[in-house]
């Protein structure tokens, strides 16, 4: 997947001016947040349920290495093949070789963020292997060659006439329609034939259960079930943090994931796979390949301050409440993950130097942290990333600070412990600021839609001392 994180500001501007995106952002995100809140009330004690979920994720991440080994052992015992990929290239090559070895004519995919991260579609395209996304939203954006707009609804912002046009051009739809149901029907008919004849299906993994070697997926459409039921070969790609210790934990986290994602108690389908089909079974894959993907995560794990990000279960709750996302939507994040979690994961996986606006453009409002069922403190980690960037951290590829930034912060810290200096400098600073012309970038940024505050004749301090 192309990395476009550096065009954050221009993309954001474009999105804020787009009526289609605006409609979705203004209307749908608050609705999603509201249904989430309603969904959570179906827990007998919502707060206790959240605390438990957070504890499960903390403990799972804490025991990551051990749990992955247990998972591998049990998955292999059940007949699955487990492949460890250190990076996207290894995972992609493994899948490509599998496709070639078995002369697979085309592959189908269930919705998965992880294969977006891998850039798998591009690799298979180069291999001349057609790939069909089968989640309705993913299918639409694949045809339109657009990135996902939102983790739950990748194409939720696309106007129906645009979908109609591309379906007629590329998905065999006969006549134009702007009815979502008719459009969905057309996609169903087109993809049904692919399911019918598919030989290799690719899915992500929502949870991997160490104790049983099982993988779990949640969905509403049924496309993931097809990808896990119809083909001869199933490839399921999991980022290594998807692990939970046992089935009880998996069930609790599934309850949490569904309520936080869509407000449902449970999505239409939840499937738990333990090994490939057994002898005598009519369907299900003959081969089940599970790819455990690192792609930078073990390095994130190494630092206990960034490790917490691996607790994420990709429910999307943080995205829906983020006031910045509510203005700009998903495109500006420029890579696989959007919203507050994208502000953390994209920089940690891609490097701080080319993702500055992701951890920069945040007001630290804590809406994300408040709703997170996995216990991630996004704002604290954003601050940590800012700190690492200024410190030119070699592991996270920080850029370092500018001379002006260093001068400002050192001067401020010097004056902070010297009240007389501080007061003189602050007074002088604000006086100078008040004299800055409207052409100064700081002033013009502020006065874009605001007035410039005038400087009162006396500070509070002066007034207090000489009332």
């Amino acid at each position, binding site marked *: 997947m192309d990395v476009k994180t550096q065009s954050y500001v221009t993309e954001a501007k474009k999105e804020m001016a787009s009526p289609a995106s605006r409609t979705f952002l203004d209307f749908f995100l608050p609705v999603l947040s509201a249904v989430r809140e309603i969904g959570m009330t179906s827990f007998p004690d919502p707060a206790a349920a959240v605390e438990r979920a957070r504890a499960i994720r903390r403990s799972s991440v804490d025991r990551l290495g051990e749990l992955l080994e247990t998972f591998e052992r049990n998955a292999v015992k059940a007949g699955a093949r487990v492949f460890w990929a250190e990076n996207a290239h290894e995972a992609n090559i493994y899948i490509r070789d599998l496709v070639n070895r078995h002369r697979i004519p085309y592959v189908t995919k269930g919705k998965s963020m992880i294969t977006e991260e891998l850039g798998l579609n591009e690799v298979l395209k180069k291999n001349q292997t057609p790939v069909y996304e089968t989640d309705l939203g993913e299918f639409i954006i694949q045809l339109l060659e657009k990135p996902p707009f939102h983790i739950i609804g990748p194409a939720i912002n696309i106007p129906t006439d645009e979908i109609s046009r591309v379906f007629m051009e590329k998905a065999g739809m006969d006549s134009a329609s702007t009815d979502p149901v008719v459009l969905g029907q057309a996609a169903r008919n087109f993809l049904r034939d692919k399911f019918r004849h598919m030989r290799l299906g690719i899915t992500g993994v929502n949870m991997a259960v160490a104790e049983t070697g099982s993988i779990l997926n949640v969905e509403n459409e049924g496309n993931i079930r097809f990808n896990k039921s119809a083909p001869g070969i199933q490839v399921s790609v999991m980022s290594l943090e998807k692990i939970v210790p046992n089935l009880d934990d998996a069930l609790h986290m599934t309850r949490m994931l569904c309520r936080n994602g869509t407000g449902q108690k449970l999505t239409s389908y939840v499937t738990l796979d333990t090994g490939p089909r057994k002898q005598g079974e009519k369907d299900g894959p003959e081969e089940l390949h599970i790819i455990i993907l690192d792609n930078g995560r073990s390095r994130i794990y190494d630092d206990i301050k960034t490790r917490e990000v691996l607790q994420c279960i990709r429910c999307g709750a943080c995205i829906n409440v983020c006031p910045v996302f509510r203005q700009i939507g998903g495109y500006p994040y420029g890579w696989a993950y959007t919203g507050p979690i994208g502000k953390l994961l994209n920089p940690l996986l891609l490097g701080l130097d080319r993702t500055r606006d992701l951890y920069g453009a945040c007001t630290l409002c804590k809406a994300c942290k408040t709703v997170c069922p996995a216990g991630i403190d996004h704002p604290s980690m954003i601050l940590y990333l800012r700190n690492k960037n200024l410190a030119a951290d070699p592991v996270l590829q920080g850029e370092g600070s500018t001379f002006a930034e260093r001068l400002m912060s050192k001067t401020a810290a010097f004056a902070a*412990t010297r009240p007389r200096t501080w007061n003189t400098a602050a007074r002088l600073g604000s006086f100078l600021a008040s004299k800055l012309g409207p052409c100064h970038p700081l002033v013009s940024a502020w006065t874009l839609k605001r007035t410039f505050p005038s400087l009162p004749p006396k500070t509070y301090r002066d007034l207090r001392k000489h009332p």
Partner: protein
Amino acid sequence: MMNKTALFIPCSVNLLLPWIGEAVDRVLKRLDVVSVYPDRQTCCGQMVYNKGFFNEARSFATHFLDVFESFDAVVCPSGSCTAMVKHRYPSLFDDDPKMKQRALDMAGRVFEFSQYLVDVLGVTDTGASFSGKVAYHDSCHLSRDLGVSLQPRTLIRAAQGTELVVLNNGDQCCGFGGEFSVSYPDISTAMVSAKAQSYLDSGADLLVVGEPGCLLNIGTYLEKNHPGKQVLHIAEFLDCQGGENGR
């Protein structure tokens, strides 16, 4: 009743909005609270901390503790400065147990203004009066960082002649975020315009906030785009007595 209460006045109030500090003084005086203004105070260091300069922020924290730790209570008319002291300071000293302890001791004694009135003094009715409808904006650091959301509403409701009305998406960020407002002006102003719209839609005569940053942001936006629509700090509001304009 605590016997030594200190005022911590944020830079924004000291330099740009001194009347908020004066309103705090008057309200406290009305409630017979004797407060002192420690002359050596400077700044909580939030600006450098939020930029990512943690080392520099430690100088601010150390100085703050030196100045304020002898007091029984520290009161501050800003949620974010209070949260900085209460929640960020201890985490700044993870590698220095002695300083961390000092920071933790301080954390229990620093209060945002409305929190101090309601939770510490047990006051609900401050004797304020304002005739009209009032909407309250939940500033991020007050509501989510400090858990202060009911206290200001309690105080507003108790004001004579005041009807508290609902502000849609009232706890959504107004888009200030310190440096954010000038680093990402397009996003920031889109956010503040959404907040202003909620205020207009609420039918309120006045918007009250507990955070000087939000006040500056929303206030200057309203001044330019909806002149006449007023926003006040909670201290200014509680300072209102009999009029519709407390300033």
